């Protein structure tokens, strides 16, 4: 298993009047084909860690390497390029561009990367959406789709440039249980069938237990790391 992401002593402190430590001293190695759950109570820094891993935020201290490239040395453009080609994001809210149709939303990262021709992009976007069961909704705008459908479009968009790493921030947080299950299964298939690495922040301990690995955060610190997690007693009740 080759290393995809490696964090050493990752710390992020918000410089407010009273400094807030979001993530403290997290060291973590994530390899390819991994299905990682990041869990912890509210405000424990799960999302912050994910943003650091996804290059949306810069760590105050510590180093982060992606595919053996130190992200601290990257300038704004290289970070953006890395996000574009190597990382796919899925947020709790779908975060689709509201004026564009499902297919156009999926095409946007491809068009920004510009590696494919317009026809190929169109074809790939349609394939991705069809694979997620949205073949009938290609030309609908986000406000014409249900929550679960939107989230699946968001997954398709994350996959658009075929990145090795998918970061999901509570991907099922705003969905009902049926849609949640659907989205979870899609993420799982990405790991099992397409060899992607998925790192998902979740409240849902039941869901976390079905992933390969579980990273537990409390107050920004890494407490336990469990391979093939056994459910741990936690302060927070699982959401269903």
């Amino acid at each position, binding site marked *: 298993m080759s290393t995809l992401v490696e964090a050493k002593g990752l710390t992020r402190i918000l410089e407010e009047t009273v400094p807030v430590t979001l993530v403290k001293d997290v060291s973590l190695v994530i390899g390819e084909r991994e299905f990682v759950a990041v869990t912890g109570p509210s405000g424990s820094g799960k999302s912050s860690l994910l943003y650091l891993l996804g290059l*949306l935020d810069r760590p105050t201290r510590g180093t982060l390497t992606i595919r053996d490239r130190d992200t601290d040395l990257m300038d704004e*453009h290289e970070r953006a390029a*890395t*996000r574009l080609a190597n*990382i796919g994001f899925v*947020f709790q809210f779908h975060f*689709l*561009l509201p004026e564009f149709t499902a297919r156009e939303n999926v095409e*946007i990262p491809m068009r920004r990367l510009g590696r494919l021709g317009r026809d190929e992009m169109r074809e790939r976007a349609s394939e991705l959406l069809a694979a997620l069961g949205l073949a009938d909704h290609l030309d609908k705008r986000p406000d014409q789709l249900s929550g679960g459908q939107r989230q699946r479009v968001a997954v398709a968009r994350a996959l658009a440039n075929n990145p090795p790493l998918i970061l999901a921030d509570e991907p099922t947080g705003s969905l009902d249980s049926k849609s949640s299950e659907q989205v979870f299964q899609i993420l799982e298939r990405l790991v099992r069938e397409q060899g992607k690495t998925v790192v998902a922040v979740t409240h849902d301990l039941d869901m976390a237990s079905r992933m390969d690995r579980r990273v537990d955060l409390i107050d920004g610190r890494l407490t336990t790391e469990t391979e093939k997690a056994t459910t741990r007693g936690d302060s927070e009740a699982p959401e269903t």
Partner: protein
Amino acid sequence: MRLIFDIALTHISGRGRQTIVAMLGVAVGVGFSIAMAALMQGGQDDFVRQLVDTMPHVQVTDEQRTARRQPAEDFFDAAAISGLRPRDDRRGIINPTAALSWLDGWIPGRFAATLKAQGVVRYSGQEVGAAVIGIDPQAEPRVSPIIGDFKAGSFAALAAGGNNVVIGDTMARRLGAGLGDTITAVSSEGLTRRFKIVGLFHTGTTARDEGEAYVLQKNAQILSARPNAINEINIKLNDPNAAPPVARRIEAELGYKAVAWQEANESILEALVVRNVIMYTVVAAIMLVAGFGIFNIISTITHEKARDIAIMKSLGFTETDMRILFVLEGVAIATAGTLIGWALGLAMVYALSLVRFELSATGQEMTRLPIAWSTLHYAIASAFALGSAAVAGYLPARRAARANPVDIIRGAT
């Protein structure tokens, strides 16, 4: 790039009403700037044209720029002269034949020599002070602006035997004389001669219509007791703008004062420059106001689209992309506004060109607004509009592009 363009278009078309208001702001700015520029430029051109048409482009007179130096001043190191009584030199331009043939050799235009003397015109007890101008009826029409303003007769009638005169209609009215009447001209020398009126002109310039009497050169020379003298050469050039160098060359060669029309009207031309500065300042101010409209809408869009900006950045768009996006939106609005503004400006200029009004109390002179049709006005107005739009788009764009996506995503969750 195409993608960013698409997103920009989607953003602004998604905000129809505001976009239209901002676009109209630019359009009105551009339109009024164009109309104003056309009017100002038209007025200026008209004014300069009148200057150029009614005046000789270069006028050579028998004056010198400085008082004649006395031989004693040249001969001795120090000389004090008092109670000087200079010799009365009434020869006018010395050796006029040589001067005129020299001019004939190279002047790119036409010229005519005249003798101008001050005198009084008298008829039935009325007296009017006048410049009695002795002309050559063949040469004068080629340089004189009066030629198109004759109400009766012409310069050619002067040559038709007897002592004839052409005067302005205002003078004729003041004297109570009409065509065919005989007036008396008295010169400053005290000589008197009777002339028959064979022509009347009306130029619209009161000083001219009231104060000029044209006679044959020979008659003027007799009247002022200056045989064979001329004291003025009026030159019309093919290209009025070439006047200053021509004037300089004549002055250097002949030694007489040669004044180009630009020099004679320096203060007026200066005033026109000031007027232009004022005009462009107003145009810039209008565009600034339009720029605020654009700033406003781009600001609103960036606020509203803060989430989209965060999303796009998380997808891998750079800050530069975001800046380009919003600047593009500003410029797109300005471009559309400019196009509408061109149409608006064109329509307004056309409407202004149709306006007619009566200028003279007598109701004779119907005038249209002087309008200049120039693509330069359109170009300048668009440049101002696009420039202010780019700035107005850039400021909020820069702020929006800098925003940290995490702050926005966190805020949403």
